[in-house]
């Protein structure tokens, strides 16, 4: 089966992700696109650098999608972009297809929150004025084998 998760330095294509999870058996689809915002904590942002430990991030993103598909009757696709992104560019895209709306919404939210909690990705905001800064985050922990 074609892999539906990846870490990439290329521009994201949310429409392609949505097509990848579509099915004639599905009556619902949910998607999420995260973009670089122009202002954060009162400071004007010109770009964000995304750093990533790629081998682990690829595996963790696939694990998160698999967990969602085990928990709900859904099909999940997700991509996280890395590198330097200007304001307005998409950094994260998630698409979920399912028979009914509830599981699409729930699974999409689950994948998003787990990405924020578990994916080894870091962002450094670059401001119009002054030095950039690494944003605070969520400490990782060893997960028990499942």
């Amino acid at each position, binding site marked *: 089966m074609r892999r539906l998760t990846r870490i990439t330095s290329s521009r994201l294509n949310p429409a392609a992700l949505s097509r990848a999870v579509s099915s004639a058996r599905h009556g619902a689809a949910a998607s999420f696109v995260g973009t670089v915002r122009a202002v954060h904590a009162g400071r004007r942002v010109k770009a964000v650098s995304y750093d990533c*430990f790629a081998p*682990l991030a690829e595996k963790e993103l696939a694990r998160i999608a698999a967990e969602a598909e085990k928990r709900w009757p859904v099909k999940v696709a997700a991509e996280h972009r890395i590198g330097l992104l200007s304001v307005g560019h998409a950094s994260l895209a998630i698409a979920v297809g399912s028979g009914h709306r509830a599981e699409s919404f729930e699974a999409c939210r689950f994948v998003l929150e787990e*990405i924020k909690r578990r994916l080894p990705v870091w*962002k450094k905001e670059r401001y119009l004025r002054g030095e950039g800064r690494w944003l605070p985050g969520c400490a990782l*922990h060893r997960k028990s084998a499942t």
Partner: protein
Amino acid sequence: MRRRIELYGRLRDAGQGAVLSVILPENATARQVLDAVGSALGPNASLLHGCVLADGENVLSAREQVPSKGRLAVLPPVCGG
């Protein structure tokens, strides 16, 4: 045994660049690797607060023995999305 340790996120600005070379005892644990990295970072060792060691497959617990081959990385708290 000398090992290359990759640094990510805020650790890249700790003055050592993206890769650090440290000498480890045989059968070193993740805790021992982090201690060695802390010594190498000197006055910037406080940046290790909240960091973990990982290989290319998993985050390693502090008492876990590090694999003898492959990539090792110190990972600060994450903030993807």
